[in-house]
């Protein structure tokens, strides 16, 4: 783990590198840094995710361990995508987090290779899972479809406003009120 100082150094480096690049007009990609319980997190702009991950790869974080979603409902921005990076030589980890507005958010996929550098092969199934469970659409993903739920399933079940679902169970104390169809 980078310590708090190391995290700030990485953030400074990203700001300097990306701020001078072709996207300099859009400002810094890093909006915030969080250091909590020994874990460093970079909050970044959604449009810059591929560039930031490419920079971090140059720094040695060459393995994308995990891509997962998060739902902050009812707060806005609501949905988020979290990228966990690992430097296997130094056994060093860093977290990159993106917050997305709206109910049908889109973000660039980091899976395919592009003009801005190679992609991250591990992101293939994990982006599909985030799409399945949270409904985040990954632009540029070549095969973005559901991975866990059936193809014809409606909704994204891990969103916090999605009903838990399930069957009402009949016990002795509620067999009169919950028998058959339940409730």
């Amino acid at each position: 783990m980078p310590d708090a100082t190391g995290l700030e150094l990485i953030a400074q480096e990203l700001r300097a590198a990306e701020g001078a690049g072709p996207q300099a007009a859009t400002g810094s990609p890093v909006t915030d840094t969080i250091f909590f319980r020994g874990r460093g997190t970079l909050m970044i702009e959604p449009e810059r995710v591929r560039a930031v991950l490419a920079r971090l790869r140059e720094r040695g974080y060459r393995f994308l361990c995990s891509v997962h979603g998060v739902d902050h409902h009812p707060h806005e921005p609501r949905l988020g995508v979290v990228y966990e990076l690992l430097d296997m030589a130094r056994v060093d980890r860093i977290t990159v987090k993106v917050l997305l507005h709206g109910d049908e958010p889109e973000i660039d996929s980091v899976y395919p290779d592009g003009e801005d550098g190679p992609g991250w092969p591990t992101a293939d199934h994990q982006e599909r899972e985030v799409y399945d469970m949270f409904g985040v659409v990954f632009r540029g993903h070549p095969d973005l479809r559901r991975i866990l739920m059936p193809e014809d399933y409606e909704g994204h079940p891990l969103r916090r406003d999605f009903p838990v679902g399930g069957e009402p169970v009949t016990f002795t104390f509620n067999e009169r009120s919950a028998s058959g169809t339940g409730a």
Partner: protein
Amino acid sequence: MRREPLAQDAGGADQRRLLVSQLNSRQLLRGSELHGINQPAHLRAAELEGDELERYVHERVLTTSLDKAVAWARSNSFFPLAFGLACCAMEQFHAAGPRMDIARFGYEAFRASPRQADLIILAGRVSIKMAPIIRRLYDQMLEPKWAVSMGACCSSMGVFNNYALVPADKFLPIDVYVPGCPPRPEGLMHGILKLRKMVQDDPDLGWRERYQARGTEEILPEPHGGPPGAADIASPEGDTPEGDTPGA
């Protein structure tokens, strides 16, 4: 099932005595009235003669005793499908293992193909995505067939009562529910023995009766004198092979 006539000339005295004694012993064993006959069976049967007697014996003795024998044989050699869904499957394996040894009862032949099995044990949670596959396996199984729902998840979705699962009896006729999370192997064995008792005592208490599904049986082609409709299916002798004479 085709049954040969018991005796060609039922008029012989020896033959008749034999039939009546068979009937009487059968009635004694059953110990109760049969088919709504209120009189003692030996009095009633003794009045019959010839073809009537033969039909009587056919209808009452041979069919019932043969069906009972078939039910007894079936219930003592279920062929379970080797099929596990989750942690309950571990207990299912254990039931087949040396300590519990379900082979004592004759259920050790776990089949890898549904076409060789007649009992499916749903051991674990059934997801919505898995349900059509299980239904397809069940449809491929031989008839008569039975289904055991093992564990809380499969019966009532248990601790996984959420958006992803479906209880088994929503898409499958279940004969025995085994409670537990997971049930111990003894529990599964108890459930299967309950099923054995059910098959032996009430062979007609299958899912077709409970779901009013009479008439959905598979039609088996018979070479001679089959039911109407069976002739459409290619006979085993291959009298009219459809591939050779498509126009005929």
